[in-house]
């Protein structure tokens, strides 16, 4: 139990996928303009991370490791995740139209999200067992959601601020504020080790 808790806390705060490992920057910058779409994207990513881990972990263990072809990991994982997202999209469209409509364009976008691939690969390299992997995936998703929500809040404030010099307007100030946010997350380093160590 302690192990799972420490894995989740680590992946939410100290090793946050967006702000500490710089994976999934594209949706982080692209979909964080409004708070509600940021939340939608965060929830969708969490869901897909969990599902992808649930499928890729057995594939790694029982297919790739059995035939000793671990070097094909990236290729196979991308293939599996992409088709998985397609399947999820179709299922939602058929059976849960309201959820499908609210997720909208985010689901197909996640297909190529490197944070999802990053979680699945890291679960293998860190040697987590199946349950630990699943919780790590949930934690990574929550961490992504946290980063999205925090950054969306910052950007909404930036929108109201008209005093930005012209050369910093738009993407430059967005990147600068993202770096400040990620520096803030550096303060968490050591916290989880301190609690559980």
């Amino acid at each position, binding site marked *: 139990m302690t192990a799972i808790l420490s894995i989740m806390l680590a992946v939410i705060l100290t090793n946050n996928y967006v702000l500490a490992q710089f994976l999934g920057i594209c949706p982080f910058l692209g979909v964080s303009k409004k708070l509600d779409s940021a939340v939608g994207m965060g929830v969708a990513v969490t869901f897909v991370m969990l599902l992808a881990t649930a499928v890729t972990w057995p*594939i790694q263990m029982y*297919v790739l490791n059995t*035939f000793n*072809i671990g070097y*094909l990991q990236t*290729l*196979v994982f991308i*293939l*599996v995740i992409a*088709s998985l997202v*397609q*399947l999820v999209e*179709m*299922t939602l*469209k*058929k*059976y849960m139209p309201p959820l499908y409509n609210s997720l909208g364009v985010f689901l197909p976008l996640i297909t190529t999200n490197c944070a999802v691939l990053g979680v699945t690969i890291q679960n293998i390299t860190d040697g987590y067992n199946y349950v630990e992997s699943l919780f790590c995936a949930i934690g990574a998703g929550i961490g992504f959601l946290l980063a999205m929500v925090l950054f969306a809040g910052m950007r909404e404030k930036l929108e*109201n*601020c*008209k*005093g930005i010099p012209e050369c910093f307007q738009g993407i430059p100030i967005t990147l600068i504020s993202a770096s400040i946010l990620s520096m803030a997350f550096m303060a968490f380093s050591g916290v989880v080790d301190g609690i559980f160590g």
Partner: protein
Amino acid sequence: MGTIVLPALIVAAVGLIAGIILTIAAKLMFVPVDERVAAIEEVLPGANCGACGFAGCSDYAKALGNDADVSTSLCPVGGAAVASQIAEIMGVAGGDVDPKIAMVMCKGTLEATRQIEELDRIHSCKSAKMFYGGNWACPYGCLGMGDCADVCQFDAIRIVDGVAQIDREKCVGCEACMKVCPNHIIQMVGKKNLFVVACQSKAKGAQTRKACTAGCIGCMKCQKICKFEAVTVENNLATIDYDKCKNCGMCAKECPTGAILSFRKKKAPAKKPAAPKAEAPAAEAPKADAPAEETKNTEA
């Protein structure tokens, strides 16, 4: 040889399995696509302004396809032409569109009211509003920082004398400015309605008067003069019921502060002072033309 063939086979097998599952799923979970939705999307202007109340043109098209109760005349950019085309696709009679444009319900120019504090570092209405309700004597009026002008895609809004002015010809009624105004002084009014109460102050008459000389003081004169019961005064503020208003202009004439604004077209008196038919094409009640408020009108 085997070191290449086996991995290739495995990857191919994984791909094949995924493909088969997806094909079966696509067959099992097939959702028919409405042909009309695609046709409507073609017809819509593609401005994606969101004035219809949906997320964009394609979202509106989808809503029309899903729900027969959605009105076909919600697109203010396309107007009557698009509405009738959509109605044709949907197979229903087209509704008439009364084109609506945005109007600024405030006359608090620098002349009429005054600024009570200096906000040097604040450059947007939203921030100014958060900061003790803005820098004007009247907390209900136009903040004059130009959030609406920034958001306008059609270059129809200018800040003149501290109050937003909307170009009636350029405005397409997309409602973007109405949504962004923190004081909610921009309202959508039918283009055929020529008289509006250009004040949102709900303060008592004396207070309004102190803050702004052009505000509505709730004196009820307009309510009494209106023959069509279109004007009512509530919470010290007159409102015009646009369904009942016949554009006679009596209220604007009666208003002691000039808070009722007339958009009736007049020819510029400086150029043709003695023109016999100087009055507007608005023919309902030509005699009751409001004399004042030329300065606030934005028509050419």
